[in-house]
């Protein structure tokens, strides 16, 4: 009778097709009581106390029960669309989603009844049929939630035929991709791209089972390759474009000298993938891991961050003293550079011309170090281990070439690195500690805090302060003392503003943690003298290449670890890094051309 009565319905076909709006609605009003109260609920027969602003999932977790789920992420308000976290609540007709339902006093909840199991397992079966298992080459396979649920709940996984075999893979430059054959329609990537980063590049196309996450057709939007979609994807459908296979090939190539350099933020996150507590510093373990993988030399990007700091501080002082374009804006975050080049080309002259630490590393390894070691730079392969997906794009930029060579040859994300180790059965926490190679292994506290939002700024201020005071103290009068800690720029807040005094020069500064917050700073740029922008929330410690999960709480722990490390360092200021100064002297002796090509870069408008 459906056909017979079709005249009345809005589903009648024909007529002009209207484009479905690509953006799903997301409520911005938190659904939480303003004054949470203590309440008692019964969870699987046991009375527990919790707060009324907790969801069932949160309350259960606090009491040792982990309710499974895919679409929820602490960074976002609940969506409740995967329907895996269903629980039975006495008196309710349907099952409720634990991720979105707040606890109420007297609630009686069951998380593992036969009814719950049946519903949850069938929904898991559905999800398995959406996700084509590419486990063999999937860097996520050792931590895959899908596989662990299949095992835990005895899911057959082949109940239904895979239905997304013909879906496309969308590649974004050489850095990030979204593989439609693996997507389970949880929409976390869209939340990351829209709610968090406000880039709005990812959209939903189609309806029902035809819906698909696609890049927008809007030419005014551009992917900045930050990788937040990847770090929020529960099933590795959004992921980095992996390079580990090429790197393994290079390692196996006898004629090549393969050098690894690892980012400051890696040391405080890699341990998580091996069961170490959040915020555990694992520098020496990871150096050992890199050696086990067969890298011939291991250097620390924190060392190159000291070089970056010195050049950046020099540029800052130069801009101030010569009254050049102000404010100066940091440029070591490649996601931010991508953003500026596309969305705000008018501020490109404000970006420092200083290259990022990993690019400094690549350049110095292939010039200074190659000469010192008497190795033909053509036979050196530099691999960066980065918390970042945009770094993959940064190394391939034409303007980053030195003597026609690419400074860094490959970038591996933290996830790729831990996958490579797991694949070789390397258990990171059990490794014998090892130190990074000299001379590019020691670093100052300023070099290591590059890994967190505010770190580049703080490090540059420390060094600029030293430089200015040095000048001042040549003259008679009050002794100028340099300052080390700039606590006002630390932390996970989206926008941090402060006024600082470095050797008598008063600077108005701003630090942006997460590209979603950059808008108001750009429109008030004239207010500031120095601005730091990191595209990912929390800076590199929350980067798109970091271990999954990455949440606010985890970012906090990683950041704390960086500052603890900074405090424990004998040298805190980059200017005290003697080896760094030596290399800079060497570069300067070699002439301006080489010095410039190793240390500086330029930007261009992207159309």
């Amino acid at each position: 009778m459906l056909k017979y009565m079709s005249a009345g319905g809005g589903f009648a076909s024909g007529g002009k097709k209207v484009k479905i709006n690509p953006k799903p609605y997301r409520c911005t009003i938190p659904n939480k009581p303003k004054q949470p109260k203590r309440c008692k609920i019964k969870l699987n027969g046991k009375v527990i106390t919790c707060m009324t602003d907790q969801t069932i999932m949160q309350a259960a977790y606090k009491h040792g029960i982990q309710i499974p789920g895919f679409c929820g992420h602490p960074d976002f308000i609940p969506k409740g669309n995967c329907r895996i976290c269903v629980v039975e609540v006495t008196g309710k007709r349907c099952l409720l989603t634990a991720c979105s339902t707040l606890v109420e006093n007297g609630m009686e909840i069951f998380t593992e009844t036969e009814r719950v199991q049946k519903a949850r397992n069938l929904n898991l079966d559905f999800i398995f049929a959406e996700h084509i298992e590419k486990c063999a080459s999937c860097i996520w396979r050792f931590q895959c939630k899908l596989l662990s649920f299949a095992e835990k709940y005895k899911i057959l996984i082949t109940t239904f035929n895979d239905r997304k075999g013909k879906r496309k893979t969308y590649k974004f430059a050489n850095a990030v991709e979204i593989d439609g054959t693996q997507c389970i329609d949880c929409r976390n990537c869209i939340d990351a791209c829209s709610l968090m980063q406000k880039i709005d590049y990812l959209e939903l196309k189609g309806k029902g089972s035809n819906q698909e996450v696609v890049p927008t057709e809007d030419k005014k939007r551009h992917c900045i390759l930050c990788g937040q979609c990847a770090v929020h994807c529960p099933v590795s459908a959004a992921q980095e474009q992996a390079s580990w296979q090429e790197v393994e090939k290079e390692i196996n190539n006898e004629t090549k000298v393969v050098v690894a350099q690892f980012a400051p933020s890696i040391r405080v996150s890699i341990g998580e993938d091996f069961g170490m507590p959040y915020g555990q510093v694992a520098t020496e373990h990871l150096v050992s891991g890199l050696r086990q993988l067969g890298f011939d030399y291991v250097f620390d990007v924190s060392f190159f961050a000291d070089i970056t700091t010195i050049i950046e501080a020099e540029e800052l002082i130069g801009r101030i003293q010569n009254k050049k374009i102000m404010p100066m804006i940091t440029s070591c975050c490649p996601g931010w550079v991508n953003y500026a080049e596309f969305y705000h080309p008018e501020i490109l002259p404000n970006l420092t011309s200083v290259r990022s630490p990993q690019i400094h590393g690549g350049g110095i390894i292939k010039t200074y170090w190659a000469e010192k070691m008497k190795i033909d730079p053509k036979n050196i392969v530099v691999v960066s281990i980065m918390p970042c997906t945009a770094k993959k794009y940064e190394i391939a930029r034409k303007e980053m070439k030195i003597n026609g060579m690419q400074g860094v040859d490959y970038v591996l994300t933290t996830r790729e690195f831990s996958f490579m180790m797991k694949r070789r059965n390397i258990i990171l926490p059990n490794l014998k500690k090892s130190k990074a190679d000299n001379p590019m292994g020691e670093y100052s506290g300023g070099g290591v805090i590059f890994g967190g939002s505010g770190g580049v700024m703080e490090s540059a201020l420390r060094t600029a302060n030293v430089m200015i005071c040095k000048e001042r103290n040549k003259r008679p009068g009050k002794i100028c003392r340099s300052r080390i800690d700039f606590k006002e720029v630390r932390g996970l807040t989206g926008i941090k503003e402060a006024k600082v005094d470095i050797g008598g020069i008063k600077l108005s500064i701003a630090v942006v943690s997460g590209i979603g917050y950059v808008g108001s700073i750009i429109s008030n740029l004239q207010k500031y003298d120095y601005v730091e922008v990191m595209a990912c929330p929390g800076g590199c410690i929350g980067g798109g290449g970091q271990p999954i999960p990455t949440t606010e709480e985890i970012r906090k722990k990683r950041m704390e670890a960086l500052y603890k490390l900074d405090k424990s360092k004998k040298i805190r200021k980059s200017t005290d890094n003697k080896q760094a100064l030596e290399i800079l002297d060497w570069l300067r002796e070699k002439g301006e051309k080489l010095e410039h090509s190793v240390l500086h870069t330029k930007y261009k408008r992207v159309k």
Partner: protein
Amino acid sequence: MSYETRNIINKIKKANLTGRGGASFPTALKWEMVKKARGKNKYVICNVSEGEPGIQKDYYILQNYLDTAILGMETAIEYLKAEKAIIYINKAYFKKFEKKLNEVIRGRKIEIFEKEHDSGYIGGEETSAINSIEGCRVEPRLRPPFPPTCGIFNSPTLVNNLETFYDVGLIVKNKYHNKRLVTINGDCLWTGVYAFDEEMTVEDILRKTENYPKFTFFVQIGGDAAGVVLNSNQLDCKVCGGASVTVYSVLKHEPFRLMKEWVDFFVKNSCGQCTPCREGTLRLQEILISKDKNWTIFSDILTNLPETSFCGLGSAASIAVTSYIKNVLLLLPSGKIKIPEADKKMLKEVFSL
């Protein structure tokens, strides 16, 4: 608050009016919720999407009693001190009544919003309607918050069906007699929209309209997509949900094809937001067209849909098929229905549990 506006809520309460959109939520309660909700602006939405096939009562009201419905809307605007009312109407109806509607809303705080063509069945669900008007993807919102406290533009919003406003109009005019509009259609002669007492049973309705068939039949109550299927011995019940009675001749409707039509409808109209509805309806379809029908999984999916779906559409997706199997397929004598013995045996085993 004037005497009259205070009076109206008591009158609606006294009339025991419930929402005519299908969920039968007490109208007075909903109005009071919006009234009490905090918000600078409040909105009224009149839902005329009528996406449920087999129901044409809204069409009937538009044609005959638009004035009364508008009176109901104006009453709501006045009671809530609402910013404006929006008539959310499906394209076909708008095309037909455009002139009339434009005339009638002139000078009033009422606007018309034409529902997108491909927003489909789900576009009629209240939060989807709100999304549609706001320009977001047409799919239901996570609740809470509910529209009465946080609806369109995050403001308190009253969403009622056109018939509900029509009934409020009647209440204002003191002409409401607890009647509701019932659409009758299907394999019978006197199809159309009738007004019946709320308490009247399906059997009475069919007999009164001289539509009670002489052949073996079954009916679907409350819409041709989401309505429940009853056999001819189960007609001693009220018309519930979106009010309609559709008569099906057993002979005319081949069982698997009929089931597939229902399932196809939900596959086509699922918004795709939640797993059970997006995937479940698709798999039901897959099973129905397969040679070896796995009725166990079929039944599991049917149970799962109302248990875990995000919204009412997903929950409703299994009603017709499940009730058809239970009330018709398994109860009719073998000679009357043509399905393979093996399937019938399996169905009996799976669905008698």
